[in-house]
């Protein structure tokens, strides 16, 4: 939380510093989000230019908005530092290709590696190898099997996302013990989907609700539309829907509009700019969304730089960078959307 506040503070300062003239000519969200990564305006000496470090970056193919933003934010972060040389490997969903990329980083002797593995388990051995070669590995989003394979692990909180969504639904339906709650999940075979669903049902059971109808889409707009069209037939009366992912959420909303249904409210997931604009406008059933930060790889780049330069997190007393950071999954509603919309990703 404190990191978030600091980021917000810095971006606010950056916006003010950029001058009033800017606000007149651009309302461009990517501008605003990348300015948070400038790093010239933080309070500590950590951002002072130090030894130039080379950081290897590898992530899966940017085949959806969230993942595209992951890589874009990491690049923007690195561009903000004169002393960071970010080597970005071509995004790939091929595990063996990604292993080869890490091998190349090791051979080139980079100072640190930021790795968002396509499959955490499959990339664990090569990450261990990098660590043994003395290169700190920053594991982002999808966790390795072996804690020794990463110096720092930065994770979004999938279980927490489900909990946040569930708690929000509870808060809205507290007076309806027999309310119908539906869930549009993402790819069912992924651990992250299972964690999200687990968190959701755990949170719901705390207030005596449960998931009455559950369908799984594939994180794509088309699949979201398809499963939701069937879901709406399955449940003639719904009180709340949680959709795991705002990319597929465009399809979910299209299906809802097509069916002419509006007796329920919907909570999204991931936090795309699109979803936030809908929440802001209040013109659809989408009332809230739960953030799964797309800035985690950018944070990874920052931490990699600190590690390579032998620095620590300035807001902690400890002289080392922590081992694990789990990012918070806050709920965005019309009340606080202004606070988050600038850092949201375009789907």
């Amino acid at each position: 939380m404190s990191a978030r506040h600091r980021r917000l503070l810095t971006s606010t300062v950056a916006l003010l510093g950029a001058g009033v003239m800017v606000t007149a000519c651009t309302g461009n969200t990517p501008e605003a989000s990348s300015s948070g990564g400038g790093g010239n305006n933080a309070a500590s000496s950590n951002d002072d230019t130090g030894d130039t470090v080379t950081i290897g970056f590898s992530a899966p193919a940017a085949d959806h908005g969230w993942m595209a933003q992951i890589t874009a934010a990491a690049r923007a972060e690195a561009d903000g530092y004169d002393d960071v040389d970010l080597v970005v490997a071509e995004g790939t969903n091929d595990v063996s290709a990604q292993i080869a990329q890490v091998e190349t980083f090791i051979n080139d002797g980079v100072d640190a590696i930021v790795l968002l593995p396509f499959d955490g388990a499959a990339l664990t051995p090569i990450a261990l190898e990098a660590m043994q070669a003395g290169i700190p590995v920053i594991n982002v989003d999808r966790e390795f099997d072996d804690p020794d394979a990463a110096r720092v692990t930065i994770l979004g909180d999938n279980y927490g996302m489900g909990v946040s969504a569930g708690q929000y639904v509870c808060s809205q339906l507290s007076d309806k013990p027999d309310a119908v709650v539906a869930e549009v999940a993402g790819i069912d075979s992924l651990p992250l989907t299972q964690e999200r669903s687990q968190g959701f049902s755990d949170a719901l059971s705390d207030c005596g609700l449960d998931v009455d109808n559950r369908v799984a889409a594939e994180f794509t707009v088309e699949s979201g539309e398809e499963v939701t069209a069937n879901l709406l037939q399955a449940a003639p009366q719904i009180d709340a829907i949680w959709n795991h992912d705002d990319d597929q959420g465009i399809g979910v909303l299209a299906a809802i509009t097509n069916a002419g249904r509006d007796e329920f409210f919907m909570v999204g997931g991931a936090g795309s700019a699109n979803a936030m604009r809908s929440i802001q406008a209040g013109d659809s059933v989408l009332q809230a969304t739960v953030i799964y930060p797309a800035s985690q790889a950018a944070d990874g780049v920052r931490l990699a730089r600190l590690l390579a330069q032998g620095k620590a997190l300035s807001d902690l007393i400890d002289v080392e960078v922590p081992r694990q950071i789990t990012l918070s999954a806050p709920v965005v509603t019309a009340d606080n959307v202004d606070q988050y919309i600038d850092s949201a990703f375009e789907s």
Partner: protein
Amino acid sequence: MSEHTTTTAAPAKQPAPTGRTTSGGGLLAGPVGRNLGLVVAFALLCIVGVVTAGDRFASADNALTILRLAAVVGVVSIGMTFVIIGGGIDLSVGALVALSSVWATTLATQAMAADTHWVLMAGTAILVGAIAGLVNGVVIAYGKLVAFIATLAMLAAARGLAEILANRRTQIVQDQDFLRFFAASPLGVPMLVWMFALVAVLGWVLLNRTTFGRRTFAVGGNAEAARLAGIRVQRHTVALYVLSGVTCGLAAVMLMARTTTGSSTHGTLLELDAIAAVVIGGTLLIGGRGTIVGTVLGVLIFTTLSNVFTLNNLSSSAQAVAKGVIIVAAVLLQQRVAAGRRQRRSPKALPPTAAEGAPAGASPGVPAS
């Protein structure tokens, strides 16, 4: 089963049963009979739906939902039916849908459409599909590449191009007239369902009532014989892939209307759904035989299946298993029906089978017919 009993009964009282079975054979030779396995499977599915979900399944709303869901894959499957009957295969349909939808929703296209008319967007999608289909066809017919490989290459390339064009973002359709037009329901039936019906009817007419259709059967049945009979096989093959591309473009327009977006992730694995629907619809993968009615039934079976599963709140994994079972069961059932027909004819033995083979080859020699 019942066919088996009639054949064993046949020797006892010969004249009557043969008369009955031939009339049965006549019925089975019709479109309903050929798709008997499908009709049974579809009816069973509907019964399961009514029993397990009651009114939620057996409502007009739900029927329209199923039809709307069937529309996109249905249109693509019609094009696929032509290609497969013509002895080819088109693995690139999903990717072409993605490419067409992305191309039609780029900022430039949308800006042009905003200045003129949304028809421009729809036209762009269909044109892109047609051109990609043309490339497929030319590479296969004149480049002599195996259809499987050529369209596999197109699958990869088209989706890649779609990703480049869209910059891997989801492109939102801004044109409200476009969305309103396709969201309308003339006579209470959604526009997409009308489009599917229209494509299916046109496809049926094209396949069964025109020279183009007869040539398609001929090319798929025996390309060499078709060439000797004076059909320009290469040109016809190109036309088949263009047709498939056009249906992809049309499907892209429908998908844009349904999801209000264009995206490089549209149509993922659509080729498998389409091929599965075509194959359980009784179309031979080696070409030369197939029906539009069967394909439509095949599409409806898969869409109804996923509808029934969702109505009962079952997981998508269980749904995938059921889908696999249905593919195998439907094809097995069809083989039984086909085998049963052959068996029933066997008592009268050789003359009819020879005659069956005859019309194509022998009719020139029999002026009387």
